[in-house]
Protein backbone atom coordinates (compact mmCIF):
# COMPACT_ATOMS: atom_id res chain seq x y z
CA UNK A 1 0.00 0.00 0.00
CA UNK A 2 2.63 2.47 1.06
CA UNK A 3 4.72 1.55 -2.01
CA UNK A 4 1.84 2.75 -4.22
CA UNK A 5 1.84 6.06 -2.37
CA UNK A 6 5.61 6.41 -2.83
CA UNK A 7 5.46 5.82 -6.58
CA UNK A 8 2.41 8.09 -6.87
CA UNK A 9 4.39 10.86 -5.17
CA UNK A 10 7.36 10.30 -7.50
CA UNK A 11 5.14 10.56 -10.57
CA UNK A 12 2.66 13.29 -9.62
CA UNK A 13 4.78 15.40 -7.26
CA UNK A 14 8.40 15.10 -8.40
CA UNK A 15 9.66 17.79 -6.05
CA UNK A 16 12.94 17.71 -4.23
CA UNK A 17 11.30 18.14 -0.82
CA UNK A 18 9.40 14.90 -1.41
CA UNK A 19 12.54 12.97 -2.28
CA UNK A 20 12.91 11.28 1.10
CA UNK A 21 10.61 8.50 2.27
CA UNK A 22 10.06 10.23 5.62
CA UNK A 23 8.69 13.29 3.82
CA UNK A 24 6.31 11.12 1.80
CA UNK A 25 5.14 9.52 5.05
CA UNK A 26 4.72 12.92 6.66
CA UNK A 27 2.73 14.24 3.69
CA UNK A 28 0.38 11.27 3.82
CA UNK A 29 -0.06 11.73 7.57
CA UNK A 30 -0.83 15.42 7.08
CA UNK A 31 -3.40 14.61 4.39
CA UNK A 32 -5.09 12.16 6.74
CA UNK A 33 -5.07 14.08 9.98
CA UNK A 34 -5.61 17.73 8.98
CA UNK A 35 -9.10 17.13 7.45
CA UNK A 36 -10.11 15.66 10.80
CA UNK A 37 -8.87 18.76 12.59
CA UNK A 38 -10.86 20.85 10.09
CA UNK A 39 -14.06 18.84 10.62
CA UNK A 40 -13.98 18.55 14.40
CA UNK A 41 -12.71 22.12 14.74
CA UNK A 42 -15.96 23.52 13.29
CA UNK A 43 -17.90 22.26 16.31
CA UNK A 44 -15.12 23.05 18.80
CA UNK A 45 -15.32 26.69 17.77
CA UNK A 46 -19.12 26.85 17.45
CA UNK A 47 -19.59 25.32 20.89
CA UNK A 48 -16.90 27.49 22.48
CA UNK A 49 -15.01 24.37 23.46
CA UNK A 50 -11.49 25.64 22.80
CA UNK A 51 -10.59 25.32 26.47
CA UNK A 52 -11.99 21.79 26.55
CA UNK A 53 -9.96 20.66 23.55
CA UNK A 54 -6.92 22.31 25.09
CA UNK A 55 -7.41 20.22 28.24
CA UNK A 56 -7.57 17.06 26.10
CA UNK A 57 -3.96 17.73 25.16
CA UNK A 58 -3.11 17.84 28.86
CA UNK A 59 -5.02 14.59 29.40
CA UNK A 60 -3.04 12.97 26.60
CA UNK A 61 0.18 14.20 28.19
CA UNK A 62 -0.72 12.40 31.41
CA UNK A 63 -1.54 9.33 29.33
CA UNK A 64 2.03 9.37 28.02
CA UNK A 65 3.40 9.53 31.57
CA UNK A 66 1.16 6.72 32.76
CA UNK A 67 2.14 4.63 29.74
CA UNK A 68 5.80 5.17 30.59
CA UNK A 69 5.17 4.33 34.24
CA UNK A 70 3.47 1.05 33.39
CA UNK A 71 6.46 0.31 31.21
CA UNK A 72 5.28 -2.78 29.41
CA UNK A 73 2.66 -1.22 27.17
CA UNK A 74 3.19 1.01 24.17
CA UNK A 75 2.68 4.71 24.87
CA UNK A 76 -0.09 5.10 22.26
CA UNK A 77 -2.71 2.73 23.75
CA UNK A 78 -2.12 4.33 27.13
CA UNK A 79 -2.54 7.82 25.68
CA UNK A 80 -5.76 6.91 23.87
CA UNK A 81 -7.34 5.10 26.81
CA UNK A 82 -6.48 7.82 29.28
CA UNK A 83 -7.60 10.62 26.93
CA UNK A 84 -10.99 8.97 26.38
CA UNK A 85 -11.42 8.43 30.12
CA UNK A 86 -10.45 12.04 30.76
CA UNK A 87 -12.82 13.45 28.11
CA UNK A 88 -15.80 11.36 29.25
CA UNK A 89 -15.15 12.27 32.89
CA UNK A 90 -15.17 16.01 32.17
CA UNK A 91 -18.28 15.77 29.97
CA UNK A 92 -20.26 13.78 32.53
CA UNK A 93 -19.28 15.99 35.47
CA UNK A 94 -19.98 19.11 33.45
CA UNK A 95 -23.53 17.84 32.84
CA UNK A 96 -24.13 16.76 36.43
CA UNK A 97 -22.80 19.78 38.20
CA UNK A 98 -23.85 23.40 38.24
CA UNK A 99 -20.29 24.68 38.62
CA UNK A 100 -19.18 26.65 35.57
CA UNK A 101 -17.71 24.55 32.78
CA UNK A 102 -14.52 26.60 32.66
CA UNK A 103 -13.80 25.90 36.30
CA UNK A 104 -14.38 22.16 35.95
CA UNK A 105 -12.13 21.94 32.90
CA UNK A 106 -9.49 24.08 34.61
CA UNK A 107 -9.44 21.83 37.67
CA UNK A 108 -9.17 18.60 35.69
CA UNK A 109 -6.71 20.01 33.21
CA UNK A 110 -4.28 21.20 35.84
CA UNK A 111 -4.67 18.02 37.88
CA UNK A 112 -3.85 15.96 34.81
CA UNK A 113 -0.82 17.98 33.85
CA UNK A 114 0.46 17.96 37.44
CA UNK A 115 0.23 14.17 37.63
CA UNK A 116 1.90 13.88 34.23
CA UNK A 117 4.77 16.18 35.15
CA UNK A 118 5.31 14.47 38.50
CA UNK A 119 5.57 11.03 36.91
CA UNK A 120 7.78 12.26 34.10
CA UNK A 121 10.14 14.29 36.25
CA UNK A 122 10.62 11.50 38.76
CA UNK A 123 14.35 10.67 38.88
CA UNK A 124 15.20 13.66 36.70
CA UNK A 125 14.25 11.96 33.46
CA UNK A 126 12.00 14.65 32.02
CA UNK A 127 14.16 15.50 29.00
CA UNK A 128 13.27 12.30 27.17
CA UNK A 129 9.62 13.38 27.16
CA UNK A 130 10.26 16.86 25.83
CA UNK A 131 9.64 15.64 22.28
CA UNK A 132 5.94 15.41 23.22
CA UNK A 133 5.84 19.13 23.91
CA UNK A 134 6.92 20.08 20.41
CA UNK A 135 6.12 16.93 18.44
CA UNK A 136 7.96 15.36 15.54
CA UNK A 137 5.91 14.76 12.42
CA UNK A 138 8.87 13.54 10.38
CA UNK A 139 9.36 10.53 12.63
CA UNK A 140 6.01 8.96 11.76
CA UNK A 141 6.24 5.22 11.02
CA UNK A 142 4.32 3.22 8.37
CA UNK A 143 2.23 1.27 10.90
CA UNK A 144 1.20 4.53 12.54
CA UNK A 145 0.01 5.75 9.15
CA UNK A 146 -2.15 2.64 8.83
CA UNK A 147 -3.73 3.47 12.18
CA UNK A 148 -4.31 7.05 11.04
CA UNK A 149 -6.26 5.66 8.07
CA UNK A 150 -8.49 3.76 10.47
CA UNK A 151 -9.11 6.82 12.62
CA UNK A 152 -9.76 8.92 9.51
CA UNK A 153 -12.52 6.59 8.31
CA UNK A 154 -13.94 6.20 11.82
CA UNK A 155 -14.22 9.93 12.52
CA UNK A 156 -15.66 10.60 9.06
CA UNK A 157 -18.40 8.00 9.60
CA UNK A 158 -19.12 9.33 13.09
CA UNK A 159 -19.37 12.85 11.72
CA UNK A 160 -21.93 11.73 9.12
CA UNK A 161 -24.09 10.32 11.92
CA UNK A 162 -23.80 12.78 14.80
CA UNK A 163 -23.27 16.17 13.16
CA UNK A 164 -26.97 17.11 12.88
CA UNK A 165 -27.55 16.44 16.56
CA UNK A 166 -24.46 18.39 17.56
CA UNK A 167 -25.59 21.35 15.48
CA UNK A 168 -29.02 21.53 17.14
CA UNK A 169 -27.49 21.06 20.60
CA UNK A 170 -25.03 23.86 19.92
CA UNK A 171 -27.92 26.18 19.01
CA UNK A 172 -30.03 25.30 22.08
CA UNK A 173 -29.94 22.21 24.31
CA UNK A 174 -33.62 22.55 25.32
CA UNK A 175 -34.67 22.76 21.69
CA UNK A 176 -32.57 19.68 20.94
CA UNK A 177 -34.12 17.79 23.85
CA UNK A 178 -37.64 18.73 22.71
CA UNK A 179 -36.87 17.20 19.33
CA UNK A 180 -35.73 13.95 20.87
CA UNK A 181 -31.96 14.32 20.56
CA UNK A 182 -30.02 12.61 23.33
CA UNK A 183 -27.84 15.56 24.22
CA UNK A 184 -25.51 13.95 26.76
CA UNK A 185 -24.82 10.87 24.61
CA UNK A 186 -24.01 13.05 21.60
CA UNK A 187 -21.72 15.27 23.64
CA UNK A 188 -19.87 12.21 24.89
CA UNK A 189 -19.48 10.83 21.33
CA UNK A 190 -18.02 14.14 20.21
CA UNK A 191 -15.71 14.37 23.22
CA UNK A 192 -14.43 10.83 22.59
CA UNK A 193 -13.79 11.55 18.91
CA UNK A 194 -11.88 14.69 19.84
CA UNK A 195 -9.93 12.82 22.52
CA UNK A 196 -8.88 10.09 20.08
CA UNK A 197 -7.75 12.54 17.41
CA UNK A 198 -5.83 14.63 19.94
CA UNK A 199 -4.27 11.52 21.53
CA UNK A 200 -2.93 10.07 18.30
CA UNK A 201 -1.74 13.43 16.99
CA UNK A 202 0.04 14.67 20.08
CA UNK A 203 3.33 12.91 19.40
CA UNK A 204 3.55 14.48 15.94
CA UNK A 205 2.08 17.89 16.62
CA UNK A 206 3.11 18.45 20.22
CA UNK A 207 1.17 19.43 23.33
CA UNK A 208 1.95 23.13 23.04
CA UNK A 209 0.21 23.72 19.74
CA UNK A 210 -2.22 20.85 19.21
CA UNK A 211 -5.21 22.98 20.18
CA UNK A 212 -4.35 25.56 17.51
CA UNK A 213 -4.71 22.87 14.86
CA UNK A 214 -8.32 22.40 15.96
CA UNK A 215 -9.24 26.02 16.45
CA UNK A 216 -7.46 28.02 13.74
CA UNK A 217 -8.80 26.49 10.47
CA UNK A 218 -12.39 26.68 11.75
CA UNK A 219 -11.86 30.21 13.09
CA UNK A 220 -10.58 31.27 9.65
CA UNK A 221 -13.50 29.57 7.89
CA UNK A 222 -16.08 31.31 10.10
CA UNK A 223 -14.85 34.66 8.90
CA UNK A 224 -16.03 34.09 5.36
CA UNK A 225 -18.96 31.65 5.48
CA UNK A 226 -22.71 31.79 6.12
CA UNK A 227 -23.84 28.16 6.29
CA UNK A 228 -22.57 24.84 7.59
CA UNK A 229 -21.62 23.45 4.17
CA UNK A 230 -19.36 26.39 3.35
CA UNK A 231 -18.08 26.34 6.92
CA UNK A 232 -16.99 22.71 6.67
CA UNK A 233 -15.60 23.09 3.17
CA UNK A 234 -13.39 26.04 4.03
CA UNK A 235 -12.39 24.69 7.43
CA UNK A 236 -11.14 21.42 5.88
CA UNK A 237 -9.57 23.29 2.97
CA UNK A 238 -7.69 25.66 5.28
CA UNK A 239 -6.58 22.81 7.53
CA UNK A 240 -5.19 20.76 4.63
CA UNK A 241 -3.66 23.82 2.97
CA UNK A 242 -1.85 24.93 6.12
CA UNK A 243 -0.79 21.33 6.78
CA UNK A 244 0.83 20.84 3.38
CA UNK A 245 2.27 24.36 3.14
CA UNK A 246 3.62 24.15 6.69
CA UNK A 247 5.25 20.81 5.94
CA UNK A 248 7.04 22.19 2.87
CA UNK A 249 8.21 25.34 4.66
CA UNK A 250 9.43 23.38 7.65
CA UNK A 251 11.51 21.22 5.31
CA UNK A 252 13.27 24.18 3.71
CA UNK A 253 13.58 26.27 6.85
CA UNK A 254 14.46 23.31 9.03
CA UNK A 255 11.86 24.27 11.65
CA UNK A 256 9.42 22.22 13.75
CA UNK A 257 6.67 21.03 11.39
CA UNK A 258 3.74 21.43 13.82
CA UNK A 259 4.68 25.01 14.64
CA UNK A 260 5.10 25.92 10.98
CA UNK A 261 1.68 24.48 10.14
CA UNK A 262 0.08 26.48 12.93
CA UNK A 263 1.78 29.66 11.77
CA UNK A 264 0.34 29.23 8.25
CA UNK A 265 -3.12 28.61 9.75
CA UNK A 266 -2.78 31.72 11.92
CA UNK A 267 -1.92 33.82 8.86
CA UNK A 268 -5.09 32.47 7.20
CA UNK A 269 -7.15 33.62 10.19
CA UNK A 270 -5.76 37.15 9.88
CA UNK A 271 -6.26 37.25 6.12
CA UNK A 272 -9.87 36.04 6.30
CA UNK A 273 -10.53 38.49 9.11
CA UNK A 274 -9.38 41.31 6.84
CA UNK A 275 -11.61 40.02 4.02
CA UNK A 276 -14.58 39.69 6.38
CA UNK A 277 -14.87 43.41 7.03
CA UNK A 278 -15.09 44.04 3.28
CA UNK A 279 -17.84 41.53 2.49
CA UNK A 280 -20.46 42.04 5.14
CA UNK A 281 -22.23 38.81 6.03
Amino acid at each position, binding site marked *: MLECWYSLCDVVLPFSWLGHAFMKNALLAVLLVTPLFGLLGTMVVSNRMAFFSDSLGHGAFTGIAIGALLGGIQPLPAIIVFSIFFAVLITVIKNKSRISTDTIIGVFSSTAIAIGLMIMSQGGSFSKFSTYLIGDLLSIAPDEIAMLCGVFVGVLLLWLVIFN*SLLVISINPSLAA*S*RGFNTVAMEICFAVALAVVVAISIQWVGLLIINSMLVLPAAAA*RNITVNVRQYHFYSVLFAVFSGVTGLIFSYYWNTATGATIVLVAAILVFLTFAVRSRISI
Partner: protein
Amino acid sequence: MTPNQRHPGPCRASDCHRLCCTKVENFCVTLGNKKIFQDVNLHIHCGELTALIGTNGSGKSTLLKSILGEVRHSGTLEYLDAKGKRSGNPLIGYVPQYLNFDLSTPTSVFDLFMACLTRLPAWLFAPGNLRRRVGQSLEKVKASHLIDRRLGALSGGELQRVLLALALEPVPDLLLLDEPVSGIDKNGLELFYTIVSDLRRNYDLSIILVSHDLDLVARYADRVVLLDNTILCNGTPEEVFADERTRKIFGMRLGPQ
Protein backbone atom coordinates in the same frame (compact mmCIF):
# COMPACT_ATOMS: atom_id res chain seq x y z
CA MET B 1 -67.36 26.71 18.66
CA THR B 2 -68.97 29.25 20.94
CA PRO B 3 -66.87 31.11 23.47
CA ASN B 4 -68.62 29.18 26.22
CA GLN B 5 -67.50 25.85 24.91
CA ARG B 6 -64.03 27.16 24.49
CA HIS B 7 -63.86 28.28 28.06
CA PRO B 8 -65.38 25.43 29.99
CA GLY B 9 -64.31 26.84 33.33
CA PRO B 10 -62.88 24.47 35.88
CA CYS B 11 -61.94 21.25 34.14
CA ARG B 12 -63.65 17.97 34.82
CA ALA B 13 -62.34 14.60 33.75
CA SER B 14 -65.36 14.19 31.46
CA ASP B 15 -64.15 17.10 29.30
CA CYS B 16 -61.61 14.85 27.74
CA HIS B 17 -64.24 12.65 26.17
CA ARG B 18 -65.25 15.37 23.79
CA LEU B 19 -61.98 17.09 22.93
CA CYS B 20 -58.39 16.07 22.73
CA CYS B 21 -56.62 17.40 25.73
CA THR B 22 -53.37 17.50 27.61
CA LYS B 23 -53.51 17.04 31.34
CA VAL B 24 -50.78 18.33 33.62
CA GLU B 25 -51.43 16.84 37.04
CA ASN B 26 -49.80 17.71 40.35
CA PHE B 27 -46.62 19.09 38.87
CA CYS B 28 -44.08 20.05 41.48
CA VAL B 29 -40.47 21.13 40.92
CA THR B 30 -37.83 21.53 43.61
CA LEU B 31 -34.37 22.81 42.73
CA GLY B 32 -31.93 22.42 45.59
CA ASN B 33 -33.90 23.49 48.67
CA LYS B 34 -36.16 25.84 46.80
CA LYS B 35 -39.66 24.82 45.76
CA ILE B 36 -40.13 26.48 42.38
CA PHE B 37 -43.82 25.59 42.21
CA GLN B 38 -46.17 22.90 43.49
CA ASP B 39 -49.63 21.41 42.89
CA VAL B 40 -49.86 22.67 39.34
CA ASN B 41 -52.87 21.19 37.53
CA LEU B 42 -53.74 22.21 34.00
CA HIS B 43 -56.09 20.88 31.34
CA ILE B 44 -55.33 22.23 27.93
CA HIS B 45 -57.74 21.63 25.06
CA CYS B 46 -57.15 21.66 21.35
CA GLY B 47 -57.59 24.97 19.64
CA GLU B 48 -56.99 26.76 22.91
CA LEU B 49 -54.32 29.37 23.54
CA THR B 50 -53.42 29.30 27.21
CA ALA B 51 -51.26 32.19 28.41
CA LEU B 52 -49.08 31.67 31.45
CA ILE B 53 -48.41 34.90 33.33
CA GLY B 54 -46.61 35.73 36.53
CA THR B 55 -43.73 37.79 37.86
CA ASN B 56 -40.09 37.08 37.07
CA GLY B 57 -38.95 33.97 38.90
CA SER B 58 -42.49 32.68 39.41
CA GLY B 59 -41.55 29.46 37.61
CA LYS B 60 -43.16 29.97 34.18
CA SER B 61 -40.18 28.88 32.10
CA THR B 62 -39.45 26.07 34.54
CA LEU B 63 -43.01 24.79 34.14
CA LEU B 64 -42.52 24.62 30.37
CA LYS B 65 -39.20 22.83 30.82
CA SER B 66 -40.76 20.33 33.21
CA ILE B 67 -43.56 19.63 30.71
CA LEU B 68 -40.79 19.07 28.16
CA GLY B 69 -39.21 16.63 30.59
CA GLU B 70 -35.99 18.59 30.80
CA VAL B 71 -36.40 19.57 34.45
CA ARG B 72 -37.00 16.80 36.95
CA HIS B 73 -40.48 17.03 38.43
CA SER B 74 -43.14 15.05 40.23
CA GLY B 75 -46.64 14.66 38.79
CA THR B 76 -47.91 13.26 35.51
CA LEU B 77 -48.39 14.51 31.99
CA GLU B 78 -51.07 12.84 29.93
CA TYR B 79 -52.35 13.31 26.43
CA LEU B 80 -55.64 12.07 24.98
CA ASP B 81 -56.68 12.62 21.38
CA ALA B 82 -60.22 13.55 20.35
CA LYS B 83 -61.47 9.99 20.02
CA GLY B 84 -59.70 8.90 23.16
CA LYS B 85 -57.68 6.41 21.09
CA ARG B 86 -54.17 7.64 21.32
CA SER B 87 -52.88 8.53 24.70
CA GLY B 88 -49.59 8.78 26.50
CA ASN B 89 -46.89 11.33 25.83
CA PRO B 90 -47.87 14.22 23.58
CA LEU B 91 -45.68 15.27 20.68
CA ILE B 92 -44.38 18.62 21.89
CA GLY B 93 -43.22 21.57 19.83
CA TYR B 94 -41.08 24.04 21.75
CA VAL B 95 -39.98 27.61 21.09
CA PRO B 96 -37.27 28.50 23.62
CA GLN B 97 -36.99 31.93 25.22
CA TYR B 98 -33.34 32.49 24.42
CA LEU B 99 -31.07 30.60 22.11
CA ASN B 100 -27.86 31.82 23.67
CA PHE B 101 -25.79 30.63 20.72
CA ASP B 102 -22.69 32.27 19.30
CA LEU B 103 -24.04 35.05 17.08
CA SER B 104 -21.20 34.72 14.59
CA THR B 105 -21.88 31.03 13.99
CA PRO B 106 -22.12 30.19 10.28
CA THR B 107 -25.45 28.37 10.54
CA SER B 108 -28.30 29.34 8.25
CA VAL B 109 -32.02 28.98 8.93
CA PHE B 110 -32.09 26.14 6.43
CA ASP B 111 -29.23 24.36 8.24
CA LEU B 112 -31.15 24.41 11.50
CA PHE B 113 -34.26 22.97 9.84
CA MET B 114 -32.27 20.32 8.02
CA ALA B 115 -30.47 19.23 11.18
CA CYS B 116 -33.81 18.90 12.97
CA LEU B 117 -35.78 17.24 10.20
CA THR B 118 -33.46 14.68 8.62
CA ARG B 119 -30.64 12.33 9.41
CA LEU B 120 -28.81 13.31 6.23
CA PRO B 121 -25.64 15.15 7.22
CA ALA B 122 -26.30 18.86 6.85
CA TRP B 123 -22.59 19.63 6.39
CA LEU B 124 -22.40 17.57 3.20
CA PHE B 125 -25.32 18.58 1.00
CA ALA B 126 -28.64 20.42 0.81
CA PRO B 127 -31.34 18.41 -1.00
CA GLY B 128 -33.70 20.46 -3.20
CA ASN B 129 -36.93 18.80 -2.06
CA LEU B 130 -36.09 19.55 1.57
CA ARG B 131 -35.45 23.17 0.63
CA ARG B 132 -38.95 23.40 -0.83
CA ARG B 133 -40.45 21.82 2.30
CA VAL B 134 -38.59 24.24 4.56
CA GLY B 135 -39.69 27.13 2.34
CA GLN B 136 -43.34 26.12 2.73
CA SER B 137 -42.88 25.71 6.44
CA LEU B 138 -41.41 29.21 6.75
CA GLU B 139 -44.24 30.56 4.61
CA LYS B 140 -46.68 29.70 7.43
CA VAL B 141 -44.98 32.29 9.63
CA LYS B 142 -44.34 34.79 6.82
CA ALA B 143 -40.59 34.13 6.91
CA SER B 144 -39.80 32.29 3.66
CA HIS B 145 -37.40 35.08 2.63
CA LEU B 146 -35.18 34.21 5.63
CA ILE B 147 -34.24 30.68 4.52
CA ASP B 148 -30.60 31.46 3.66
CA ARG B 149 -29.95 34.02 6.38
CA ARG B 150 -27.52 33.31 9.18
CA LEU B 151 -29.26 32.66 12.51
CA GLY B 152 -27.10 35.29 14.17
CA ALA B 153 -28.18 37.91 11.62
CA LEU B 154 -31.91 37.58 12.38
CA SER B 155 -33.75 40.12 14.51
CA GLY B 156 -35.44 38.93 17.70
CA GLY B 157 -38.86 38.80 16.06
CA GLU B 158 -37.59 37.01 12.93
CA LEU B 159 -35.79 34.41 15.01
CA GLN B 160 -38.90 33.82 17.08
CA ARG B 161 -41.00 33.22 13.95
CA VAL B 162 -38.37 30.90 12.48
CA LEU B 163 -38.35 28.87 15.70
CA LEU B 164 -42.15 28.79 15.65
CA ALA B 165 -42.08 27.36 12.11
CA LEU B 166 -39.57 24.77 13.28
CA ALA B 167 -41.75 23.80 16.26
CA LEU B 168 -44.65 23.21 13.83
CA GLU B 169 -42.64 20.73 11.77
CA PRO B 170 -44.08 18.15 12.31
CA VAL B 171 -47.38 19.55 13.66
CA PRO B 172 -47.25 18.86 17.42
CA ASP B 173 -50.02 17.89 19.85
CA LEU B 174 -48.90 20.57 22.24
CA LEU B 175 -47.03 23.75 21.42
CA LEU B 176 -44.98 25.44 24.15
CA LEU B 177 -43.91 29.03 23.53
CA ASP B 178 -41.54 30.82 25.85
CA GLU B 179 -41.60 34.45 24.90
CA PRO B 180 -38.44 36.53 25.31
CA VAL B 181 -38.68 39.29 27.93
CA SER B 182 -37.07 41.77 25.58
CA GLY B 183 -35.54 42.15 22.17
CA ILE B 184 -38.71 42.15 20.11
CA ASP B 185 -40.39 45.37 19.05
CA LYS B 186 -44.12 45.95 19.40
CA ASN B 187 -44.87 45.29 15.72
CA GLY B 188 -42.91 42.05 15.83
CA LEU B 189 -44.85 40.90 18.89
CA GLU B 190 -48.18 41.82 17.32
CA LEU B 191 -47.30 39.82 14.19
CA PHE B 192 -46.23 36.87 16.31
CA TYR B 193 -49.50 36.84 18.26
CA THR B 194 -51.55 37.09 15.06
CA ILE B 195 -49.68 34.14 13.58
CA VAL B 196 -49.98 32.02 16.74
CA SER B 197 -53.66 32.88 16.97
CA ASP B 198 -54.27 31.81 13.35
CA LEU B 199 -52.29 28.61 13.82
CA ARG B 200 -54.40 27.64 16.79
CA ARG B 201 -57.53 27.79 14.65
CA ASN B 202 -56.09 26.27 11.47
CA TYR B 203 -54.32 23.35 13.10
CA ASP B 204 -56.53 22.97 16.17
CA LEU B 205 -53.40 23.23 18.31
CA SER B 206 -53.08 23.25 22.07
CA ILE B 207 -50.77 26.11 22.94
CA ILE B 208 -49.18 27.19 26.19
CA LEU B 209 -47.59 30.61 25.92
CA VAL B 210 -45.43 32.22 28.56
CA SER B 211 -46.08 35.88 28.09
CA HIS B 212 -44.92 39.21 29.44
CA ASP B 213 -47.25 41.45 27.47
CA LEU B 214 -50.55 41.56 29.33
CA ASP B 215 -52.27 43.71 26.69
CA LEU B 216 -51.64 41.14 23.99
CA VAL B 217 -52.61 38.29 26.31
CA ALA B 218 -55.92 40.00 27.02
CA ARG B 219 -56.61 40.25 23.29
CA TYR B 220 -55.43 36.88 22.01
CA ALA B 221 -55.52 34.27 24.78
CA ASP B 222 -58.50 31.97 25.37
CA ARG B 223 -57.44 31.22 28.88
CA VAL B 224 -55.04 32.86 31.29
CA VAL B 225 -53.20 31.12 34.09
CA LEU B 226 -51.55 33.13 36.82
CA LEU B 227 -48.59 31.29 38.29
CA ASP B 228 -46.87 32.19 41.52
CA ASN B 229 -45.53 29.15 43.36
CA THR B 230 -48.77 27.45 42.35
CA ILE B 231 -51.69 28.33 40.13
CA LEU B 232 -53.35 31.30 41.79
CA CYS B 233 -55.91 31.99 39.16
CA ASN B 234 -57.15 30.19 36.04
CA GLY B 235 -59.88 31.36 33.68
CA THR B 236 -60.77 33.63 30.78
CA PRO B 237 -58.70 36.79 30.38
CA GLU B 238 -61.61 38.83 31.74
CA GLU B 239 -61.89 36.68 34.86
CA VAL B 240 -58.18 36.57 35.59
CA PHE B 241 -57.50 40.24 34.99
CA ALA B 242 -60.49 41.20 37.14
CA ASP B 243 -59.18 39.05 39.97
CA GLU B 244 -57.86 40.71 43.08
CA ARG B 245 -54.69 38.58 43.19
CA THR B 246 -53.72 39.43 39.62
CA ARG B 247 -54.14 43.11 40.34
CA LYS B 248 -52.10 42.81 43.49
CA ILE B 249 -49.23 40.96 41.80
CA PHE B 250 -48.97 43.23 38.80
CA GLY B 251 -50.02 46.34 40.69
CA MET B 252 -51.87 47.48 37.64
CA ARG B 253 -54.62 49.28 36.02
CA LEU B 254 -55.36 46.85 33.24
CA GLY B 255 -56.35 47.95 29.79
CA PRO B 256 -59.05 45.59 28.54
CA GLN B 257 -61.90 46.42 30.89
